[in-house]
């Protein structure tokens, strides 16, 4: 065991704001976001990359924040659910989630939203199979997924109105 826990300085852009912090190597990105930055939207549902509740976007890609070390995020940009709405204006996807009943207990919601958002940014008009695949790494025990898929599909088909 290490007697003195070494600290590493990292500089991470989170939701377009840069944070420079000293962190121990064993700190995960999830712990960093939740405990250091108090961004608790990403949740720990399993800690081993099986449930997707901690999904955030790392350099634009959906990742399980529990399986990324904070030191690995040095110089990276991170997006969490807290950064999605701008000036109180929800994203189309966030609105669709509310309107389509895609939210129940809400514990998986942040991760679901970011998985879906990363799909839509890469592929604005995905088909149903692609939508199902995009959220297949996000477990939800409440909804049975259908209303979540419908919400994403509504945005993909341009049924959700902008602005």
């Amino acid at each position: 065991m290490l007697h003195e826990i070494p600290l590493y300085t990292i500089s991470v852009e989170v939701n377009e704001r840069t944070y420079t912090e000293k962190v121990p190597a064993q700190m995960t990105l999830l712990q960093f976001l939740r405990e250091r930055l108090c961004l608790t939207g990403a949740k720990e549902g399993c800690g081993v990359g099986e449930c997707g509740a901690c999904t955030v976007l790392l350099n634009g890609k959906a990742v399980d924040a529990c399986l990324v070390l904070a030191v690995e995020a040095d110089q990276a940009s991170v997006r969490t659910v807290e950064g999605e709405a701008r000036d109180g204006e929800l994203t189309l996807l966030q609105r669709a989630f509310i309107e389509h009943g895609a939210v129940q207990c809400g514990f998986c919601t942040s991760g679901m939203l970011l998985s879906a958002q990363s799909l839509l940014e890469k592929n604005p008009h995905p088909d149903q199979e692609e939508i199902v695949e995009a959220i297949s790494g996000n477990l939800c025990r409440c909804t049975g997924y259908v209303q979540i898929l419908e919400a994403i599909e509504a945005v993909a088909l341009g049924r959700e109105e902008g602005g």
Partner: protein
Amino acid sequence: MIRPFKYSKPRFLREALEALEKENTRALAGGSDLLVEMREGKSQPEHIVDVKAIPELSCFSIGKDGITIGGQLSLNELADSKELGQTCPILGDAVRTVATPQVRNRATLVGNLCTASPAADMAPPLFVLNAAVVVASKAGEQRIPIQRFFQGPKKNCLTPGQLVLRVEIPPCSSGRGVFMKKSRVQGHDLATINVAGWANPQDGSLRICIGACGPTPVLLTGSDELYQRAVSRDELLDGLAMLAQDQIAPIDDLRASAAYRRHLVTVFLGRMVRILFPEEGGTSRAS
């Protein structure tokens, strides 16, 4: 909880190789296996060497000489490569069955191999494609056939101070491959079994690899001869099933019993052969 450790992210291969010579040191690429092991206390390295800044590990080329995939390449970078999908669809098919989209954005092909799980989804296609793993140490580079890389359950052939630079796949323009996986759910799961097959009518070779049915993926021996000898698809299939049953050594575990695995192997060999040789009757070596 992950116990404390020291972290370094060398930018030069030589630095990394030196660091990896130290005791209780592990290389970190995608981290999707290593961090889980560390969280569960199955592994407690004192030093972690992040290899994602080493230029030698970032190569990715698809050409006449074959395919080269560096140690930093994530599974989704492979899945998203249209060129790879066209040149070697069997790899793309296998990649998309590994874990979840989020994990595939981090996990690397090389990491999947280094974990050396008997059920590694990327192993069977690389076995049948005759891939090799290029390993570096201070003594130089070494090219290890993938079969030799897998030593046993969760055991690869690397020794301290060695690092996998890349995977090299020989040209695969002539031939046709199939990958199949059976797991307990449609969603992400470890393979109950996985199989890959590669048939090359030009040189009369047929390579078949079966995962999760032994301490390492099992590359069937004797399949070429069967392929060359068989006069019908059914005969080939029967022969392959016998070979497979003889060479695999599945165990009972949480995912399936050994008996069910044996049964699935025969079923999936059948399905695979029917895709490799779509015509009823012959095995169309002439085409």
